[in-house]
């Protein structure tokens, strides 16, 4: 490792808050980019399953095209 200690890695000669702040923002943005479409897919499948169940209960009913 380039730094002598964990404290030095965190502090980075005073630049630590900027560097770690930037990396934290990156982590949040990148993770949300991945999680968002996965959650949307889950939501869509759940919605379609509910729709399917509804149609099975009333076979003559119209699909609401959800």
């Amino acid at each position: 490792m380039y730094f002598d200690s964990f404290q030095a890695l965190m502090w980075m000669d005073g630049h630590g808050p900027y560097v770690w702040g930037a990396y934290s923002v990156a982590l949040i943005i990148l993770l949300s980019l991945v999680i968002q479409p996965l959650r949307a897919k889950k939501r869509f499948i759940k919605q379609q399953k509910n729709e399917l169940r509804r149609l099975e209960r009333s076979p003559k009913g119209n699909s609401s095209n959800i």
Partner: protein
Amino acid sequence: MKKYLYTLFHKFGSPKWFYQLTDKLLPWFTVMTAALLIGGAIWGLAFAPVDYKQGNSYRIIYIHVPAAFIALAGYYVMAIAGAVSLIWKMKLADVAVKCAAPIGAAMTLLALITGATWGKPTWGTWWIWDARNTSMLVLLFLYLGVSALYEAFENEEVAAKACAVLTLVGTVNIPIIYKSVDWWYSLHQPASLKITGESTMHSSMLYPLLVMILGFYLLYGTVLMLRMRTEALVRYRQQSWVKTLVKNAK
């Protein structure tokens, strides 16, 4: 050969084929992306040497430059997809335009935020209205504009056409961003990485950057696939393959 290309082109236009193909690709992309980003970040943060002029603040380069690369490359991806959607009316190209916009916006935002946190200790200010910063801000608005325009139309076909045109018009901004540090006076440093000619960075700092850039490209591919898959499901929910998929889903 021509027939083969024609078939391939048609296959690319098929949402079902795309879904099945990405099913196989995604695990590889995910593992490689995670390995490169985690490895590259640890390398850049803890093992790369300090910069003699900027101190440790330069370590932000390992996320700032890859994010900015993707912000620009992502616009080209969106513009090419827009052109394909306009010319050949390919269904998936239109899906790609819609899905590429929010990813590009997130990457541009990340480049702007990390640029500001790098600017404060280096330039002494979070923000300056110079050519590079301003043209990147315009890029963010272009991405947001494409997303907003999509939502503004009820008819998906009309929305696709309008967005493709806006996307193509916006490409004029990309060379301006690239060249802004050369054409105008700016606090922003000129490019350290060069496609032609030698880079101005030492290899001990350059290699982690290259790892991170590759990781960001793969991440972009992964997220674009994830978004396009979800969008394809929603758009083609009346097709039998989506109905079967929904039925079989846990």
